[in-house]
């Protein structure tokens, strides 16, 4: 078969929120359901314009965020790649349905453009206060994949990644960005179709009578048919057996819960995405994510100019926390610096992995302002 003709990459000047939409559409998203909230609203507004233009695309503005995520789950069960976007208060409302998505193994993407909190907080100021909510906001013990993005290009790339991971592991994936990245306008490259991978959920091929919707597989991820495709089965938020019917038999309950963890934990190398800058010989390494990682990158460069052996570990995946990558840099560095626009939600994870081995310095800021390169540089030159 002929390879697709190599087209020149398209360059556009886009907002972070616009880049999210581009990424979603490239990944094959055909359904958006949600409720507007600053600073995420542009994602919804652009989706409302773009989705009706693509075959099978559909868009709906629901009455609240609970309904928004409910409609996304429904559409995903019916075979669509579906997403919603929101900000802090809306993300809180979505939590029950997030848990439903986890236990029913429904692929979906939630973008949370974080704003200052608690409560309605600072609607148009940046913050990184929803990190632990993304991990633990819904009730019950569960695994989850949380990504972030630190610039507009990554908004596009990591949205594609979010859809791919959601489909591959049949799970909700959360993309956390902050207000600055969402509202920054930058030149980005829209990749050609042969330059990125698109993963679609695996559908069953066996006769419908043989299909067991929640049966163990080698990857731990059961195939998933669309509603209406001839495979009729029951979907429930109750703990269920391999047929999908409610159970409280300890062996069946354990099997389901353990598989839900295992299906993600056994592929940590695939889901834990990080970038490293100058870490090979670094004595002090900044661990950062989101817009703060950009400040950190500049601070590291300036520190190097001043003769400090500094490096950066930029997290694209926040959860499952990239332990291996952290351990690797800890084997050489004597200090880790974790700057975040919260009181220490990610440094908590870093300290957990570090377990007292090297020194961990935190930089925390909760005044609705970004952490500047100078603020990070100050710490880098003093340790």
């Amino acid at each position, binding site marked *: 078969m002929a390879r697709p003709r190599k087209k020149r990459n398209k360059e556009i000047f886009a907002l972070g929120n616009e880049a999210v939409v581009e990424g979603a559409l490239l990944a094959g998203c055909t*359904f958006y*359901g949600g409720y507007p909230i600053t600073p995420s609203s542009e994602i919804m507004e652009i989706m409302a314009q773009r*989705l*009706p*233009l*693509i*075959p099978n*695309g*559909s*868009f*709906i503005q*629901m*009455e*609240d965020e*609970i*309904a*928004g*995520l*409910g*409609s*996304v*789950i*429904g*559409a*995903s*069960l*019916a*075979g*669509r790649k*579906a997403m919603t976007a929101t900000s802090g208060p809306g993300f809180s409302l979505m939590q*029950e*349905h997030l848990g*439903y998505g986890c236990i029913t193994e429904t692929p979906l993407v939630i973008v949370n453009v974080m704003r200052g909190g608690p409560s309605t907080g600072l609607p148009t100021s940046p913050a990184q206060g929803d990190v632990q909510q993304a991990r633990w906001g819904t009730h019950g013990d569960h695994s989850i994949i949380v990504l972030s993005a630190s610039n507009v290009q990554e908004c596009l790339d990591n949205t594609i990644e979010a859809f791919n991971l959601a489909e591959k592991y049949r799970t909700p994936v959360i993309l956390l960005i902050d207000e600055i990245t969402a509202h920054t306008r930058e030149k980005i490259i829209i990749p050609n179709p042969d330059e990125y991978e698109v993963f679609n959920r695996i559908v069953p091929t066996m006769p419908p009578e043989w299909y067991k919707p929640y049966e163990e597989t080698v990857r731990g991820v059961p195939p998933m048919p*669309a*509603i*209406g*495709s*001839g495979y*009729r*089965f*029951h*979907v*429930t*938020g*109750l703990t269920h057996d391999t*047929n999908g*019917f*409610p159970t409280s038999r300890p062996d069946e309950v354990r099997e389901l819960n353990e598989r839900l963890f295992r299906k993600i934990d056994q592929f940590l190398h695939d889901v834990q995405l990080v970038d490293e800058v100058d870490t090979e010989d670094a004595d002090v390494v900044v661990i950062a994510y989101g817009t703060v990682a950009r400040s950190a990158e500049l601070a590291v460069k300036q520190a190097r100019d001043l003769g400090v052996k500094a490096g950066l570990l930029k997290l694209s995946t926040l959860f499952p926390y990239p332990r291996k990558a952290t351990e690797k840099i800890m084997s050489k560095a004597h200090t880790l610096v974790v700057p975040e626009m919260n009181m220490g939600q990610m440094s908590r994870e870093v300290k957990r992995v570090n377990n007292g081995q090297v020194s961990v310095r935190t930089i925390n800021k909760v005044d609705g302002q970004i952490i500047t390169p100078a603020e990070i540089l100050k710490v880098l030159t003093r340790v």
Partner: protein
Amino acid sequence: MVDMKGTQLIHEYLRHNKKFPHVFCAGCGHGIVLGSLIRSIHGLGLSKDEVCVVAGIGCSGRLAAYVDFNTVHTTHGRALTFATGIKMAKPNMHVIVVMGDGDSMAIGGNHLIHAARRNIGVTALILNNNIYGMTGGQCSPTTPAGSFSMTTPLGQMEQSFDCVELCSAAKANYVARGTVFHVKKLDKMIMDGISNPGFGVVEILTPCHTQYGRKNKYRTPVDMYKMLKKDVIDIDRYEKLSEADKAKKVPSGVFVQKDDSGLEEKFYQMAAKCQGGA
């Protein structure tokens, strides 16, 4: 449509791999609704694969697990939101939502109003037993003033919702009220609700003797069915009553029937135009 009667028909649609017995108390009206739903779908000649039953949480919500369709047991009060996503994604499917009175009008009240307003093409069956069955008999938004429940030990002092008035005001395309005592009529209403375009609501009065009856002088299922027989009358007869007599009766029948096209139909027609189609 194959001609099948009674249990033969029921067995055709029940799930054989589901562990029985079911969760309903003996004498609960929810089982009658299940039978009525099966007869209606069979009567319309729909294939199992073109039907999706979406249910909320409550005794009523358990109904979905037993029938051999595409079934989704959702979260408390939110069944309509899931159904909206399914219908938008698969406009050719018949999406039927089963909810309790607490499910649909308390926690899910907002979704009910908006599903009706936007006229999404799903059919909502509201199993109204005037009480929270599954959680042990607390009052619901339809518990009649003065009656007793676990959380209204002094008698209900709030006013109750009239499901038909609520859904009519919210502009649902089809609004009907039936009971599990008047089964033939109920079958017809559910069939009409499913075949009518846009958002349809069938409120089904169904007894919960376990939680409502025992606190309100209807100790047995039979007492409750007698009450339905006596108190619920056809809307034509109801209209002729004096105001004083009306207060003692509940009207049943079809209250609203419009044929506006559903939201999903409008959306895809408009989208086709935008994509350069006819």
